[in-house]
């Protein structure tokens, strides 16, 4: 554990030094390629005057709504696909096809349908996560060993209880990776959507940086975006996955 931290410290120090060296060599003017210190200063002042915090708040609100809706919708679509052959034959193929479409391709339609507003962005976020979650739920439920279902039924579980107490928990190990993938797709869609107009989120902050030729702001915002994904990944999905591995005994290093 300690070894890992030392390695990481050394790695990132070298990265920072290289960055500084490139700045000192002056390939690009300072305003195009800022030094790490300058970026750090922008980061601090961005958080101090709360412009970053406001942007983070706005972006997070959008992703929570959009991702939340896609979990509910995707979960329901996945369940229906796994249960009804008719839904699988029809919707199943469409979902597979649409999943290959980058969600930002929905933006032109979203702008026409909803206008230049919140709903358009949330729609794009939903489209980003929806299909991964649908497919993961469907295949997760389908791959539940029949033995668990037989055992559950034999002990007296029926219909809804059988689904909630046996099928769903048994499918969770396949559903969680789908939720995780959906999250990262949703996050990307959100940033792409926010870049395109005055949306006040983190993506918009990036655009302002570009328009003002303030590359240190651009890089500082990029850091923030990456940091938020890492935190969510580690704190939310990391914990869920660790808990699941402990229960199911698929943990490594024991």
């Amino acid at each position, binding site marked *: 554990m300690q070894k890992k931290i030392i390695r990481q410290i050394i790695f990132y120090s070298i990265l920072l030094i290289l960055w500084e060296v490139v700045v000192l060599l002056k390939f690009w003017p300072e305003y195009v390629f800022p030094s790490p210190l300058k970026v750090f200063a922008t980061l601090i002042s961005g958080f101090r005057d709360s412009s970053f915090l406001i942007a983070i708040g706005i972006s997070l609100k959008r992703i929570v709504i959009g991702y939340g809706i896609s979990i509910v919708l995707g979960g329901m679509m996945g369940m229906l696909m796994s249960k009804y052959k008719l839904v699988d034959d029809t919707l199943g193929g469409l979902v597979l096809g649409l999943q290959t479409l980058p969600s930002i391709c929905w933006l032109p339609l979203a702008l026409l349908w909803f206008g230049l507003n919140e709903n358009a962005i949330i729609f794009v976020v939903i489209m980003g996560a929806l299909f991964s979650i649908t497919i993961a739920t469907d295949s997760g439920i389908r791959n539940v060993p029949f*033995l668990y279902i037989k055992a559950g039924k*034999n002990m007296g579980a029926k219909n809804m209880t059988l689904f909630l107490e046996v099928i769903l928990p048994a499918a969770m190990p396949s559903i969680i990776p789908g939720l995780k993938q959906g999250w990262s797709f949703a996050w990307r869609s959100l940033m792409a959507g926010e870049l395109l107009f005055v949306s006040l989120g983190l993506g918009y902050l990036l655009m302002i940086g570009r328009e003002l030729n303030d590359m240190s702001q651009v890089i500082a915002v990029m850091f923030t975006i990456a940091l938020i994904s890492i935190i969510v990944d580690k704190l939310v999905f990391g914990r869920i996955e660790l808990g699941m591995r402990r229960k199911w005994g698929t943990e490594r290093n024991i």
Partner: protein
Amino acid sequence: MIEICGLSKSLRGCNGELPVLKNINLQIKDGEFLCIVGPSGCGKTTFLNIIAGLEHAKRGNVLHNGLPIDGTSPERLVIFQDLGLFPWLTVQKNVEFGLKFKKLSPKERREIALEYLDMVNLIHFKDAYIHELSGGMKQRVALARALAIDPEILLMDEPFAALDAQTRDMLHLELQKIWVKTKKTILFVTHNVREAVCLGDKVIVFSSLPAVIKASFPVNLERPRRIEDHGLMEIVRQVLAELQFEIEKVFEEEFDAKENN
């Protein structure tokens, strides 16, 4: 009581219908420990599944307390070969699972679960997850989970087949002790003749496909029996003699089939 009259069953195979069970007549009395042995692939599991209500009989009557069996019921509880314990629940929650469908308070559920975990000596592992247990411990959890539901009959489908010999011997003793204590009706399917004679009040020999009841041996020996007891040997020999003929028949048929291909 389970009554089986003129039971026949075929499964759909690649070469059309494959008759599996043929005209089986049997009574399983309350409190009886009945073992079924037969050559592998002879339809023992199909037979057990029909009594469990997991498969339908094609012809004949299968009655449970006078009523035809239709679908599974917690009164006829199966302990599957691969157990089907739930890996996402702790040992105690696994045992409590079937109690959720009875009208019991959470406290009563917990008490019953702990009582049966105590009976199989696993009370200290109540908070463990299934993957943390050894093969023998998993068997005991499955037994506790089944007994907690208080079914009329336990249907055990080669539950000890994958265990090492020492663990199996120990579980044989434990199962007999529990049977004496709870007086449950048990239908135990196995391909291991010694195991069948060691455990059962009665051992029934199935023939090769399509299975008919070949012979029935009462076992009136004192309990608890151990697999190496001398008293068992004579009955084991008789059962084996019946079975040997059937096993050879299976071999010959498989050999002929290969030649013809």
